[in-house]
């Protein structure tokens, strides 16, 4: 219950309407002016004026919303209402920088979204942006209405100030800062214009674009570039590049202020946090705060390296469900680890000196805040840091550190009153916001709990009362008989109850008591069943204190490992580059030297330095006896979708060349490790095939345990996915997807032509602009940077290479003709199952081919696929590779290559080349990898048998002289995973309820296995996870 300490108020409603005498600055007063003095003194309190500063027996004077004085003496000037706060702690009010307080909730159109008809455009009004997830123009202060219920849920945890904007969309609009006071919004607002809130989730937007995380990132990139352009272009002469005036765009105009406005970006996990950081750095945005996810401990070095301050939720996962033996199969080691480690996240951040503040955000219930924060403290977070993260730090970040965040003279009277030390077992009884008290528990309530002796008819009846948050219970025990009190009623210090004396063998019925607790004495009367009135007076004796079994101060012992990535088979320490001498192997060079029996290979500093027979082991080299083993170059996969986070397709618009797989690399993906176990060292991660011009690809090395950035193949040229046929014309997408252009192969031809024509014109525009004199440029609106089209210019300029998803002969001939006409090249036809029909035309164009070994029959356009396709193409001189397009096949690409030996008798070395040097050439990385030759990067696999045999298993997989996978180590890891999991399950089984308690999902959701044609709106699905 909130009780406002305003005696003149007759109802709570009135109090809200007339909270303070100063409410009438511009608002005409109705009725009589309220000029009640707002003078209060909190006396004899323990006052924590700021983190680390404590005053005992202090008095805080509050005058008209401000702290007027803090004094040691208890003498209070006249006119102040005095509140005895002895036994109470007073802290500065807390500040939450990430809330959507006082705003209407965003509502999603129930008819739109996942599984619904696509929606390719946004309703345009008032100069809004073209994408419905952009609300940058919104100044949320204009929608702000104080909300007493919401405010209360903050105040009960001690919060008095919030920064607020609605959590909806990618650019969420500009937040405001407000005190959690009742009354007029005009009064509550501390700063009307604060940070822009941002996130990767498109929220309630029903527009199809973006449908993936990479689309979301691309949209942010384009929008920020547009904002830069807009501030240069708007109002200038534009007839040179635009045949109409520069549009008015309210969102872009608003974003011109972003650098000074500052950004609060919500990250949903540790990798999202790193992505947000680098994306905003691209645009030189320094004033950025990231909303953390609770996973920061698992990548603390990288998180620290961002240099960004964090807003930290302290929601912890509940213990994974392992209580029933049958449920344990569904629990992953990663979940158990996160349950154990999550409470230590804040301490890890503090030790790493990462600045952070705290927020209620992400808690299922606000009441979890203090138990969780105390848990974080028991895991090593210092109390001082915790308090600073609630008070002085956020005040400083807001630039309001002269007004709020401390208990000091002249500061706003925002106070938290706690019965006892909040960091021990203190309980917040009241929060003062700008001198208004919101009381949750009366401070002067008597404590009935204790034992008493009732003298009735010569017997002494021992009464025990307990008292939990105003609810009193009690019983009388006499010998082996117990009688519980009934009809207990308490009002202030008044107590009434009924006691069954008969049950105690003390009378003929029920006696009734009415009395009061005066000081330490319970006084009153007991009326027996017989009507006798017995006067009662008994001194209160304290209850015997119950000893807590576990000391709260005991720092928990953590059993789990933290690995990179933090999941089963993650590495505790990354393997180092080694100089090795591999002796007596059968070496398949994938080069001119062919296959060499009984051959030695020397690897130094990550490179092959010598290949020969009977070499001697140089000093400092580790020797590996590879007798009976086969050594090949690391397997290279031209077409893979592993290690991609939240969406392989930006499957919304028909042309999405602006999206980048590089933006969403997922170093956590277990498929990296599994690929290594099959000898794969390099993969091109392609965008899916949902649109004629898809996204930009990224070539990676399968460096398990490294960061997303380290996965990138250094110096590899840029590439992009294009696609033809059924997927791009949405043939198998269902009835709802029949409206997007193109729906035919003919339309695919024209839309690609149109896009490249636009690219040519774009390039010309920019050339013209660059040629302008500086004075002309100054008055001319520049062309807009269009990442979608700019990417196509890179293709025309031979700086980016096309890998095109294609199946049937007609579309292959179509795209070759189109490429010749528009002046671009097809580097590799991927899938290309009918390549055998038009191999000579492909050869003439100079294109290579990357195919499946034997896939067919799964859809109409693969009905003519044949397993001898690769041989027929190769016979016509086309460079051919075999790809996986799946994490399954990526584990056995050597076997897929071997199928060419089965079906068309391909030469064995040529067959192996289809997964080594040939894909290296297609990816234009053949100068570095793809063969075993002196001077090349030491990416190699040691196989137990002939690499094309079904019996070959990768024993070791090395990248750049680093052993990333070893079969023997893998067996050790399997054991470790099992043991660690067992230990953690035991820990859960032995944990107390509070240790097991938590909220929400226990670990990041795994990505599904991505396929080319997965065109679901991933962001819409993700939205379903949110509150």
């Amino acid at each position, binding site marked *: 219950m909130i009780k406002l300490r305003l005696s003149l108020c007759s109802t709570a409603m009135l109090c809200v309407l007339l909270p303070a005498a100063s409410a009438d600055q511009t608002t005409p007063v109705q009725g009589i002016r309220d000029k009640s003095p707002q003078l209060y003194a909190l006396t004899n309190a323990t006052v924590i004026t700021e983190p680390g500063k404590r005053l005992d027996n202090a008095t805080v004077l509050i005058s008209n919303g401000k702290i007027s004085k803090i004094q040691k003496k208890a003498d209070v000037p006249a006119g102040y209402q005095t509140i005895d706060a002895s036994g109470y702690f007073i802290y500065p009010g807390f500040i939450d920088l990430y809330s959507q307080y006082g705003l209407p909730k965003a509502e999603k159109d129930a008819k739109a979204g996942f599984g619904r008809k696509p929606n390719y455009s946004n309703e345009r009004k008032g100069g809004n942006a073209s994408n419905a997830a952009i609300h940058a123009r919104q100044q949320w202060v204009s929608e702000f209405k104080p909300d007493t219920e919401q405010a209360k849920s903050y105040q009960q945890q001690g919060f008095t100030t919030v920064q607020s904007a609605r959590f909806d969309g990618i650019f969420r609009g500009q937040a405001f800062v407000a005190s959690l006071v009742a009354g007029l919004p005009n009064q509550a607002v501390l700063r009307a214009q604060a940070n822009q809130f941002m996130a990767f989730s498109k929220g309630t937007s029903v527009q199809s674009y973006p449908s993936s995380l990479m689309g979301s990132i691309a949209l942010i990139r384009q929008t920020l570039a547009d904002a830069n352009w807009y501030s240069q272009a708007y109002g200038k002469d534009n007839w040179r590049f635009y045949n109409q005036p520069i549009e008015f765009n309210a969102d872009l105009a608003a974003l011109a202020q972003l650098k000074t406005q500052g950004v609060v970006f919500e990250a949903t996990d540790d990798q999202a946090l790193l992505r947000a950081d680098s994306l905003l750095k691209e645009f030189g945005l320094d004033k950025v705060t990231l909303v953390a996810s609770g996973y920061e401990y698992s990548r603390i070095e990288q998180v620290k390296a961002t240099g960004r301050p964090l807003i930290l939720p302290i929601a912890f996962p509940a213990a994974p469900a392992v209580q029933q033996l049958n449920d344990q199969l*569904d629990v992953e080691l990663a979940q158990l680890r996160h349950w154990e480690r999550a409470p230590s996240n804040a301490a890890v951040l503090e030790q790493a000196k990462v600045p952070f503040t705290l927020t209620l955000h992400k808690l299922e219930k606000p009441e979890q805040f203090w138990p969780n924060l105390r848990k974080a403290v028991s895991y090593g977070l210092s109390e001082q840091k915790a308090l600073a993260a609630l008070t002085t730090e956020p005040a400083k970040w807001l630039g309001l550190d002269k007004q709020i965040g401390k208990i000091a003279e002249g500061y706003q009277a925002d106070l938290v009153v706690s019965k006892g030390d909040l960091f021990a077992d203190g309980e917040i009884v009241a929060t003062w916001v700008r001198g208004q008290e919101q009381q949750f528990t009366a401070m002067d309530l008597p404590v009935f709990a204790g034992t008493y002796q009732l003298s009735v008819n010569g017997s002494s009846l021992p009464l025990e009362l307990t008292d939990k948050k105003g609810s009193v219970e009690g019983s009388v025990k006499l010998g082996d008989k117990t009688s519980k009190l009934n009809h207990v009623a308490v009002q202030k210090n008044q107590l009434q109850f009924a006691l069954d004396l008969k049950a105690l063998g003390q009378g003929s019925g029920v006696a009734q008591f009415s009395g009061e607790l005066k000081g330490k004495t319970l006084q009153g009367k007991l009326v027996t069943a017989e009507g006798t009135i017995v006067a009662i007076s008994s001194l209160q004796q304290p209850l015997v204190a119950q000893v807590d079994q576990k000391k709260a101060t005991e720092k928990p012992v953590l059993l789990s490992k933290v690995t990179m990535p933090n999941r089963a088979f993650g590495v505790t320490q990354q393997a180092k580059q080694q100089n090795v001498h591999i002796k007596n192997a059968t070496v398949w060079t994938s080069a001119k030297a062919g296959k060499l029996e009984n051959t030695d290979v020397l690897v130094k500093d990550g490179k092959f330095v010598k290949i020969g027979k009977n070499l001697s082991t140089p000093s400092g080299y580790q020797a590996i006896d590879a007798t009976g083993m086969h050594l090949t170059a690391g397997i290279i996969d031209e077409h893979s979708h592993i290690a991609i986070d939240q969406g392989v397709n930006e499957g919304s618009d028909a042309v999405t060349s602006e999206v980048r797989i590089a933006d969403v690399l997922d170093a956590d993906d277990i498929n990296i490790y599994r690929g290594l176990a099959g000898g794969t060292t390099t993969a091109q991660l392609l965008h899916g095939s949902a649109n004629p011009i898809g996204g930009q690809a990224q070539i990676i090395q399968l460096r398990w345990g490294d960061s997303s950035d380290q996965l990138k193949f250094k110096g590899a040229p840029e590439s992009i996915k294009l696609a033809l046929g059924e997927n791009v014309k949405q*043939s198998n997408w269902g009835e709802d997807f029949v409206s997007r252009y193109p729906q035919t192969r003919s339309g695919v031809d024209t839309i690609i032509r149109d896009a490249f024509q636009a690219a040519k014109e774009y390039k010309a525009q920019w050339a013209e602009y660059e040629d302008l004199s500086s004075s002309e440029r100054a008055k001319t609106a520049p062309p807009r940077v269009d990442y979608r089209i700019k990417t196509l210019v890179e293709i025309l300029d031979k700086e980016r290479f096309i890998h095109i998803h294609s199946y049937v002969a007609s579309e292959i001939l179509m795209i070759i003709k189109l490429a010749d006409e528009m002046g671009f090249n097809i580097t590799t036809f991927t899938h290309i199952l009918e390549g055998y029909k038009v191999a000579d035309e492909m050869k003439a164009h100079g294109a290579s081919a990357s195919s499946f070994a034997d896939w067919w*029959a799964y*859809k109409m356009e693969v009905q003519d696929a*044949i397993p001898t396709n690769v041989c027929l193409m190769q016979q016509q001189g086309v460079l051919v590779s075999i790809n996986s397009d799946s994490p399954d096949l990526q584990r056995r690409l050597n076997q897929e290559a*071997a199928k060419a*030996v*089965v079906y068309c008798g391909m030469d064995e070395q040529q067959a192996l080349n289809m997964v080594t040097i040939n894909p290296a050439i297609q990816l234009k990385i053949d100068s570095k990898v793809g063969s075993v030759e002196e001077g090349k990067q030491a990416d190699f696999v040691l196989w137990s048998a002939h690499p094309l045999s079904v019996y070959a298993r990768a024993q070791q997989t090395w990248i750049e002289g680093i052993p990333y996978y070893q079969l023997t180590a*893998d067996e050790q890891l399997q054991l470790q995973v099992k043991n660690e999991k067992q230990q953690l399950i035991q820990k859960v089984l032995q944990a107390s309820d509070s240790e097991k308690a938590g909220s929400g999902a226990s670990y990041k959701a795994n*990505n599904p296995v991505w396929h080319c044609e997965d065109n679901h709106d991933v962001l819409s699905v993700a939205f379903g996870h949110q509150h």
Partner: protein
Amino acid sequence: MKYSKLFLLVTAALSLTAQANDIVPAPKQTAAILLQDATVHTVTNGVLKDTDVLLVDGKISAIGTDLAVPAGAQVLSLQGKQLYPGLIALANQLGLTEIEAVRATDDSTEVTQTNPDIKAQVAYNADSEVVPTIRANGFSYTLVYPNGSLIMGQSAFMQLDAWNWKDATVVDAVALHIKWPRADVMPNPWRPQKPEDIRKASQKAMTELEGYFKTAKAYAEAVGDGVKLPVDSRWQAMIPVFKGELPVFVHANDERQIEQAMKFAQHYGFALTIVGGRDAWRIAPQLAAANVSVIYTSPYGIPERADEASSQSFQTPAQLAKAGVKFALSLDGYWDTRNVVFAAGQAISYGLSPEQALRSVTLDAAAIAGVADKIGSIEVGKAATLVVSDGDIFDYLGHKVRYMWIDGRAVDLNSRHKQLHDKYQQRYQAKN
């Protein structure tokens, strides 16, 4: 190499530019066929080198060295070649689905969850373009089952060289197939659902399944007692289950599903085979003890759980063999069925013995389908269904399949794939 007239005829057929549906099913065996000097993988009697096998009237009539050539016999030397029983792929949709994405070509899955009266084989397309490509890799038989939910219908054992489904059917009603309700609560990334909701849905399905069985059992008992009931084709179709005449194949992957199915089978007293069996390795000894066979469909599976070893699915066959579980291998699809033979090979490199690998696609598969008395090994009296490869049939380096007989009928190993290959080779030859 000596070729008989029969083989020349087959070769002549290959040179026609023909559609797959022009590949003519082989006629009944008339003359005896003597296969000489082969390495014979008998399955039941080890590997016999330089051994002859005589095929008469569709059956194996003699196995030995230097068998006498019967009058009028066609003779084929298989010196240096490997002779195996025709391979068997169990549990798939071969002939039921032609092009997965084209609905009109898909007869694999019926609606409603009470389809015990559904028979897969009547939809089997003997002219499927897919089937010849499966034969070409050494497979002579398949077990096709109807897909769906809960009680899915009955499977049939088919031979792969036929004019129509009747001709193809070797055994009608091999088993009743049931898709077991979910037992896990792992979240589906596409459809976020709370564990308790998943559990509730599974419980509902389980209750329904139990209800169907109670109804069917009561129906069967009433009919058995001579009570006149209006015919309900669904419960009528289940009478053989309760008579112990129709085994039940339960499609289940999760350990908990398998355990539930085992209890269920015990309760109703039917013979159980597990189809799927991804977790079968976790309870292999229990399966062996209960004499439950497994048609293992994940020989190439990605580990189901993040904490499982990368190679878990690959080593499961070896783990089952070690525990004494009878199992067959399957890929539970259609076009990829031809890879089952390589999956068996890969299982060998993960610890399965070559003998057990062979059994998993021959005799043990035949036993699971209830035809081991006639099919699945090279023994006198068994079906003359044989396949010849250049080398180790499980290994890419030796797999090349040369000949196949089904019941002594010389099967044409041509396929759409070979025809398209030949067609387009001609395009380039004409150009050059």
